[in-house]
């Protein structure tokens, strides 16, 4: 392709954020179909990410730290704690308590747990240890949710370990998001206010398994939206294309 060097320069300008929306769209389309340019992006992204390090170092005012800490302490009282924190503390609490034996679908549950263990970080070992000691019975319910609209054809299987305060959500047939977007999962409990359960991109085969915290007593609605990446948002900006109550 004779115009490819020009295209590469355009891709790089897009990478540093200099592309106008129309050109950015062209670059996304081009990147989707051009392996060479994706390699170029992977190589130069490291450099773009390092650019903030080039700035001259300055000191913020002395009271910024206390302002941030005060705001953080205040917000942790009004916001639901992050799911993984709740999961961890509950699991630790359970470690001291006795396991409650009431299993209905042990094979399903263990299969999904096994999937979930891929890439779930430091507390895998802990969970594995718990699982090894799971007696033969444990109360588990499984629900399947179907997508609609832009997620028609997508599915989520929710394995609800209600007694543990957690559910495993496995998405299937999820289309990949457009560049700059992420999936964000929302949990809506008694307060009716959606609380973010984290952002993710599906794996290349369109699947993803997440662990979310659920209320041990109340019904929880699980919903999925597409939001601006990389961090997602604090409140959903669109109606969910996949949702259900467990």
């Amino acid at each position: 392709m004779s115009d490819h060097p020009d295209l590469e320069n355009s891709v790089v300008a897009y990478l540093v954020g200099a592309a106008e929306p129309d050109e950015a769209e062209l670059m996304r389309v081009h990147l989707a179909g051009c392996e060479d340019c994706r390699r170029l992006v992977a190589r130069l992204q490291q450099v773009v990410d390092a650019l903030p390090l080039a700035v001259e170092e300055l000191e913020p005012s002395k009271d910024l730290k206390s302002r941030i800490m005060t705001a953080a302490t205040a917000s942790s009282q009004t916001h639901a704690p992050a799911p993984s924190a709740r999961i961890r503390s509950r699991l630790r609490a359970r470690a001291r308590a006795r396991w409650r034996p009431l299993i209905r679908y042990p094979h399903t549950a263990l299969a999904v747990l096994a999937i979930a263990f891929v890439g779930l970080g430091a507390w895998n070992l802990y969970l594995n240890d718990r699982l090894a000691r799971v007696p033969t019975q444990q109360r588990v319910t499984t629900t399947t949710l179907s997508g609609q609209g832009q997620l028609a054809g997508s599915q989520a299987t929710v394995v609800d370990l209600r007694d543990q305060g957690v559910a495993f959500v496995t998405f299937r047939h999820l289309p990949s998001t457009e560049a700059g977007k992420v999936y964000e999962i929302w949990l809506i409990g008694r307060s009716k206010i959606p609380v973010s359960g984290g952002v993710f991109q599906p794996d290349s085969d369109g699947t993803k398994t997440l662990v979310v915290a659920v209320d041990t007593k109340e019904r929880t609605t699980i919903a999925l939206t597409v939001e601006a990446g990389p961090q997602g948002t604090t409140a959903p900006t669109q109606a969910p294309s996949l949702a259900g109550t467990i």
Partner: protein
Amino acid sequence: MSGEPWGGVTDPELAEQLAAGSSQALEQLYDRYAALAYSVAMRVLSDPGKAEDVVQEVFLKLWKGATAFDASRGSLRTWLLVAVRNRSIDHLRGRGGHERFEKDISQYAAASGAGSDPWQEVAQSMEREAVRQAVSSLPAEQRQALELAYFGGYTQREIAAMISLPVSTVKGRVRLGLEKVHSYLQGRGFVDE
């Protein structure tokens, strides 16, 4: 806090403590990166009040959404500084002026986040020095194009109008500048390939 700024904790450990709701971890994160984050915001905004607002916004965002950050795969520092730069540009230009290439948090390479703490500190300050050197050694016109785009938040057409040159020239300078910084950093082992 002791006089040891790193507190014996690596970034991935810190991210994990943050996700578990530890306000001490947030405090440590502040001690570690607030000055750098503030410097990035100041570079874009040139306004101490607004720069501090952005730093506060991003630290609180990380605090509230810490579960979305996969500590085992990500560099906390990169995430933080990229978020500060992006929010600063949003403040400066208003949303929707142009579009950014954004990655999923989990795609941030673990390269600069791991390691034991004394080494992490040394490695990070060496890296900072190398990036400064690399950018300041660029030919003036390449550095200008890169800085107007990355820290100024200007689009390629705006930059072209500013310096009265074709858009293709602006893109070419950005590309050349980034390639040079890449080979400088690669030669010192800070980036791959």
